């Protein structure tokens, strides 16, 4: 198992290398640079700025120096400074030495801010939104799927699957404005835009206080985001539950005279949820990366806004940083799922 995880982590590095390579090539293939303006800068200033950010180096030098800054930890005696090109995500003091790791570089367009600043202040918002959305998706999706499977081809099944089809058919950009209009404008129950937590965050990711003032901002966007995924979970739960419930060991459990509740809860559900767990990983990654549509609709200060504007601004470090971050999320959550899968299903062995 350890062997397997190690190999997967190694493989993950390869994937991240390729992803960063493709992104790097693609973003430099887009014409124009970060300092091109409608009103042209004097060429000396332009050249100076490019020199300052090492944009005058050959592309491969830029690429590999970026990778080494991000990936290779360095040990120095110099304490962390406030300079934008010296901002590391991980700073560890070990005696006289500092271990610094993961410098994603400065942002070209917002001066005095680094990509790591964006990760510290904006990523937690997207992360929280994704987490709440995932919770909503599971809380709605699983019971819906179980209910549909247990009442196969009866009206609760039709209602459940109707809701599921509704969920996959009504995307964020449709459901978002409609719900904002109903609850934000017409009834004025919930604020139509904004987010209830500000940096600094607890443990770097979580809001400091969980109160109505926090959740009233989160309910609408998280519901809109999670609803589509709840449909996916509901369908999968139903399908796998229907399959499991026809197995012999369920018949055996019934034949033993177990109560129906016990059969469903202990014997059927436990096995039916295995395939569902496998989808939660990609779903979570999709939710965290997908938040940026929701963030646009609801005006939430998350990571998504930065990604879209960074592309039109040619803010290379921000583009690279966000794409790499999302890719790490995707790969890690897939790995996590495979491990959980092996724990849940003892028949699976990774060698």
């Amino acid at each position, binding site marked *: 198992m350890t062997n397997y995880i190690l190999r997967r982590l190694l493989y993950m590095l390869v994937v991240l290398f390729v992803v960063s390579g493709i992104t790097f090539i693609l973003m430099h293939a887009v014409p124009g640079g970060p300092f091109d303006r409608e009103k042209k800068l004097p060429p000396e200033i332009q050249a100076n700025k490019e020199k300052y950010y090492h944009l005058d180096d050959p592309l491969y030098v830029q690429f590999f120096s970026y990778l080494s800054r991000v990936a290779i930890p360095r040990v120095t005696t110099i304490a962390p400074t406030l300079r934008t090109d010296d901002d590391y995500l991980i700073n560890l003091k070990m005696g006289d030495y500092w271990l610094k790791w993961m410098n994603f570089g400065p942002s070209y367009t917002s001066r005095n801010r680094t990509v790591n600043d964006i990760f510290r202040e904006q990523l937690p918002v997207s992360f929280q939104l994704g987490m709440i959305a995932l919770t909503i998706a599971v809380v709605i999706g699983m019971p819906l799927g179980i209910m549909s499977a247990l009442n196969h081809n009866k009206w609760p099944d039709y209602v459940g699957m109707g809701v599921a089809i509704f969920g996959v058919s009504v995307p964020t950009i449709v459901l978002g*404005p409609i719900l904002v209009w109903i609850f934000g404008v017409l009834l004025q129950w919930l604020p139509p835009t904004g987010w209830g937590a500000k940096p600094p965050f607890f443990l770097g990711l979580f809001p400091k206080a969980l109160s109505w003032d926090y959740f009233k901002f989160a309910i609408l966007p998280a519901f809109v985001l999670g609803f589509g995924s709840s449909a996916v979970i509901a369908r999968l739960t139903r399908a796998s539950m229907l399959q499991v419930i026809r197995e012999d060991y369920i018949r055996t459990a019934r034949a033993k005279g177990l109560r129906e509740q016990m059969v469903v809860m202990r014997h059927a559900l436990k096995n039916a949820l295995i395939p569902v767990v496998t989808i939660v990983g990609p779903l979570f990654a999709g939710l965290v990366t997908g938040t940026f549509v929701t963030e646009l609709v609801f005006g939430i200060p998350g990571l998504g806004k930065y990604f879209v504007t960074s592309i039109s601004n040619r803010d290379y470090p921000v583009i690279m940083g966000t794409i790499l971050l999302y890719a790490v999320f995707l790969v890690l959550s897939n790995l996590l799922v495979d491990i959980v899968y092996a724990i849940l299903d003892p028949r699976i062995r990774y060698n």
Partner: protein
Amino acid sequence: MTALTNPLTPVADQSVTNKSRSLWQEALRRLIRNRGALTGGIIIILLVLTAIFADVIAPYTFEKQSLLNANAVPTWITRLFPSLKPYAVINEQYPIGADKLGRDLFSRIIYGTRVSLAVAFIGPIISLIIGVIYGSISGFFGGRVDNIMMRIVDVLYAFPGLLFIILLMAFFRTTLAQPEEGTFSYYLGQLDSKFGGLLFIMIGIGLTGWETQARLTRGQVLSVREKEYIEAARSIGATNWRIMFRHILPNILGPLIVLETLSIPGYIYTEAFLSFIGLGVNPPTPSWGSMISDGSRALRAYPNQALFPALALAVTMFAFNFLGDGLRDALEPRLRGTQE
């Protein structure tokens, strides 16, 4: 040997074609009996007709502005949305109102059908072609080729899809915005602007949507590759091409079509989303996504401007989802009941 095979071949051929035809007919029968799929199909046919006859149905063209009637609404809308009454310019000539440039919303929604349907029909074709070719090569040749090709797909899977497509669109939109005359990108750009920006959306969708299809195709090819009829075909000297297209593809087509149909709503959504963030179709070409985007900026004052295009988008996605579900039940009856 020839004496043996010759009389046998036509018989075998005939029985195969007969069986496969009845299989498709059977599927069609099942599809029509499925009420949801039938409704979806009818809605899609209506949408197609709307798109074709948009010029006849729409009372105005999609670009005709009338600034005097900016944000105008007919009376029934003011009754439906009491919140907008004090602002509104009343004009009964617009069935569901006009946008901030005084363009008829109804006509724009009608013309917007064209964009969504074009994506719905051409997107799957592109991804089907790339995915099927890639997947069948990978599955058919197996071994090292398969290994390398599937690793590439794995890496592409690690790309956050929506972000990748945004990056691609930015690349297309700016690289080919003002190319030099006579170059290849110039003609591509011309073609794109002729279609109102749709071409690049299609390419973007095609480039990001084929990986799942490739995986499925590979799996299917692997499952039929060792079947006896393939061995039989090979023993009578059929070429790889022939085996692939005559013997393997027709037998694995069902699941591939189902997957493509089920991913159509995703393609429609991708286009709407790209237009929503301003990387989609070029204005003034109407797309439901850009209309929702414009409308949601005025949600408080004129909810009708966002709600009606949103409704159109939702109905279309519903129809394709219902049809896709029905198609799956019809083409893969084994899954019926266990999968929904």
